[in-house]
């Protein structure tokens, strides 16, 4: 399993697990980062900046710190 920050752009991956504090986990799940869901990374800004990914056709932005907590595997 890799974290969302370590995957290549435009590759479909499956969300495996959400780490972090319970509050953070719940927040990320409410956004749609639910284990089992497919996602792909569409943008990654330099200097550990924010990331953008696509879930169910919706583009979402997450901070680097949040993306670190999203563990994914090849779909």
């Amino acid at each position: 399993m890799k974290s969302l920050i370590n995957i290549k752009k435009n590759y479909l991956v499956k969300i495996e697990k959400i780490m972090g504090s319970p509050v953070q986990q719940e927040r990320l799940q409410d956004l749609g980062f639910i284990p089992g869901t497919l996602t792909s990374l569409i943008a990654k800004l330099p200097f550990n900046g924010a990331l953008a990914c696509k879930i169910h056709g919706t583009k979402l932005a997450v901070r680097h710190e949040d993306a670190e907590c999203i563990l994914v595997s090849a779909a």
Partner: protein
Amino acid sequence: MTTPKFTIALIGFANSGKTSLFNHLTGAHYKTVNYPGSTVDFAQGKLIDHPNITILDIPGINSLTPRSTDEEIAIKSLSCLKSLIPSEKNYPDLVISVVDSTQRTRHLSLTKQLIDAGFNTIVALSMNDLAKKQGKQLDIPKLKEKTHCPILRIDSRKGTGLKRLKNICLKQLQTPTKKTPTILNRHQEDITNNHNWVKETLTETRKDKPAKTESFDMDRVLLHWALGPLVFIGIMGSFFYSIFALAGPFMDAVDTFFGFSSTWLMSILPQNILSQILIEGIWAGIGAVLVFVPQIAILFFGIGLLESSGYLARGALIMDKLLSKIHLSGRSFVPLMSGCACAIPAMMAARNIPNKKERLLCMFIIPLMQCSARLPVYGVLLAILFPNSPLKSGIALTGIYLASIIIAAIVGSIGAKFLDLKSNDSYFNIELPTWRTPVWKHLFYHVWHQSKSFVSGAGPIIISLAIVLWVLSSFPSTEQSFAMMIGQWIEPVFLPMGIDWRVGVAILLSFAAREIFVSVLVILFSIGGSELGLLSALGEATFQGTSTPIFTTATSIGLIIFFMIAMQCAATLAIARKEMGSWKLPRLQLILFVGMAYGLSVLTVQSLRFFGVY
């Protein structure tokens, strides 16, 4: 028989099309109401042709579990409606759950939570044209069976489906829920159940078709690691340049109009104290309010354009990392940048920041951005410091901007500690909306509403402060006014800054508007004529009765530092009061920024003198 009163609440994610729907249902006639002690705005209006039915636009939420103070208040309004609208019951009679069809997974999850809490719910599917393009279609009759509540498609941009929605609402209000809706704390189990339900429902009701061939995704350029920031600088640069360029002529026009009309009024009214108060006090005060309207309207038009096209969210994403260093998020960029034009529209632009603490912090440091009214002041002071060297002046001006950003960052970091704002609080996960062309009617209405709220909200405070400053500067007479008396009386305060009472009075009166500083100096040092005359006259100005010059290197630097930090004007104070909801923080801004400005200015002047620089 009296008609029974009802309340309908619109609930959905931010950008779900909720506000457009609200505008259609109410005919865009609304007022904003606040929960006691909060600055979260709820738009409240009446259903067209049904004055007994109140429509409430609840600010965007992601779930019924609050993640921020703002969401907490939004959710609270669903169970304690009485505190928001005193004549109401504690919960709305009906909720319309607005679901963006392109984002059905997340949005239906919120709908399910509303149904589970026991609200009388109608589901309105929005953004259907986009969903169709993406091939996302739902079997509505089946979805009705799953949710046990009325579901319909609406188009809040074109206004279709709204008549049906209205009829369903009226019907649904006749069949109230039996038990009181209650919002319970959710556990991990509930979250999982909720997700499973959404998954199951979508599998059963999905009628997806292959998406129409996807056109080129602009985000590949706009969010590119190198091109993205470049495009951002280009877009923002032209955006802020056009605010300066476009607003200028309008502001001049307002100024000229008030100048001419005052002269005209003076010629037709009898010369007495009453007409003087009317023209120079009240009429000029109204002018002082209206002069900001062009900037506000143009800024909000620009922001509206960026927001509704979808670019603002991308820009926020690009700026997020930098601003997160001072516990703000990318959302604060536009307000802070606008502060370089004028703090008044900038504070209003901060309304776009969803998190309350972050919004307060952003508004707190906006006055530290160098507004354009300070430029004439710097112009004179830098010309005294570097005569005949525009290059050195230019470098120094850049230095002023950079120094102010550093000061703002320091104040921001300390402020974040006081507000208990942790970097993760102002969490930044936003949806990047699909690219769309703006609905011009909504955009213009938005601009009109923001300008109106400025005139009616901050206007009275600005007018009163303008009148007070006018009375101080023109009574008992302009030759020996209260301001001058006060200036002479508190001259000891100004002496450590290396300036006499006349410069002090100019500082005091420039609280009406920074650029006044120069014109007051012209009057008090009895300088007439060209700008060259002004500079040499100021250069030769001495303390009265002595030959000690006033505008030396040390005092000019000291004055620049003062103007760089001090709270700029009465209008800024007024808008801060209006936007922050109380005098607490604006008062702190005034005391802190003026105190800091004075302290640093005195420190600079005295240390420069200590090292032999006069």
